[in-house]
């Protein structure tokens, strides 16, 4: 597939081979034939590596502590990644980018067992990159223009985002997405592992509202967590980069790269 939505730029697909015993013969054709007939079956696996957040684990203090990141990324995100790779070891799903894997395993609403892990790996990658040290404050340029166009003002957008986060019942995520068909920004709330990629929308920013994301730092004070995210953590740099790519897709569609 040509340029997939390159929103999680680091999930790499590596194909380790397990070589079986080769038996070589002196004759050229037989030799060539036998290289590809291993005694043991060659196992081709799909594998998705765990990426690091683009900052040190203590870089988001005091709004998100190092301890939270150690557990959230080091244990929980890593756990999803390990579980996913374990599932994929026995699965025909191979050769997908992360986004493709999520859409495939979502299976139009009847998710396959790999969906939850795949989506959560991607969601967390996206979340780390939605934040930065010294983040928050205001967006600028095209992003700000689009927000003002679709929400009236930045402060309307901010209020709506915070309200949506507070109204989430249970575990889930809050997203700012660019709707591909309607060509506008929207705030979307999803439960558990659900990711707006499955609807073909393009996420711009996300906020993890699972309790493990904030409980160590804020206990049950969700409002403080969300407000700190808006004021000090949100990465408008990431949002701008994502928006630029998103706009290209929305305006120009999928790039048609000719097959060689």
């Amino acid at each position, binding site marked *: 597939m040509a340029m997939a939505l390159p929103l999680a730029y680091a999930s790499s697909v590596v194909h380790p081979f397990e070589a079986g015993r080769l038996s070589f013969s002196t004759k050229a054709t037989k030799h060539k034939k036998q290289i590809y007939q291993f005694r043991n079956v060659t196992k081709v696996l799909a594998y998705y590596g765990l990426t690091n957040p683009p900052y040190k684990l203590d870089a988001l203090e005091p709004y998100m502590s190092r301890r939270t990141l150690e557990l959230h990324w080091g244990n*929980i995100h890593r756990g999803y990644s390990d579980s996913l790779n374990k599932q994929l070891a026995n699965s025909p799903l191979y050769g997908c980018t992360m986004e493709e894997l999520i859409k495939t395993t979502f299976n139009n609403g009847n998710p396959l067992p790999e969906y939850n892990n795949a989506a959560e790996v991607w969601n967390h990658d996206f979340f780390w990159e939605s934040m930065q040290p010294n983040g928050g404050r205001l967006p600028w340029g095209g992003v700000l223009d689009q927000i003002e166009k679709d929400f009236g003002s930045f402060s309307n957008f901010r209020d709506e985002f915070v309200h949506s986060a507070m109204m989430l019942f249970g575990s889930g995520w809050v997203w700012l997405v660019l709707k591909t068909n309607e060509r506008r920004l929207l705030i979307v709330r999803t439960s558990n592992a659900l990711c707006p990629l499955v609807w073909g929308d393009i996420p711009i920013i996300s906020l993890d509202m*699972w309790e493990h994301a904030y409980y160590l730092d804020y206990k049950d004070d969700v409002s403080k967590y969300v407000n700190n995210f808006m004021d000090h953590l949100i990465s408008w740099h990431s949002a701008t980069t994502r928006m630029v790519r998103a706009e290209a897709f929305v305006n120009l569609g999928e790039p048609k790269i000719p097959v060689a």
Partner: protein
Amino acid sequence: MALRTLFTKKALTRASGLGPLGAAAGDRGLGSGLGQARGLTAASLPDLPYDYGALEPAISGEIMRLHHQRHHQAYVTNYNNALEQLEAAVAKGDAPAVVRLQGAIKFNGGGHINHSIFWNNLKPEGGGEPPHSALGWAIDTDFGSLEALVQKMNAEGAALQGSGWVWLALDKGSKKLSVETTANQDPLVTKGLHMVPLLGIDVWEHAYYLQYKNVRPDYLKNIWDVINWKYASEVYEKETA
């Protein structure tokens, strides 16, 4: 102390005697003066039958305090608000508003119901007294053994994605026990109108994260040390009488 027993007895009766919805609708425990002034049957936070630190080391005092004073209280408050708004909407004949409020009522009301049951499901060193007589036999019949039941509940609790509860449920009709899970704050009755909760374990992260971090299986293993089998037996015997 006597006064405390009086209040806790009240809270116990309300939570266990009236069935899943009774706890919310009929609860007039402490601090309900405001509700009575308004003429509404307002829900209120039931008192815990033990100190916050009494369930250590299975569940830390910090978690118990936050869980009871902050989370459960929030459900009670928001449930009462939603009921008020519902009353107003019904009086005005505002059907869209009535329907819109159902989500908040289900979530906060469910949270109040579930947690009221949960406090009674826990008892300092309760796990030391395994269930005997009627409930014990029923567990052996329906699950094979107490260990099998515990294993099943732990497996289902650990596998639950997101937030929710795992229940030991009694089907009032068939008198059979089963292990059920519900998502978010859905009460057990959403799994079946004849389902009665004997035991519920909260697997929301706020129930264990501060102490067990993301290792939910450890929390599930340890909580059996403080499970109140006496309460579960009482409910079972009452429902199968």
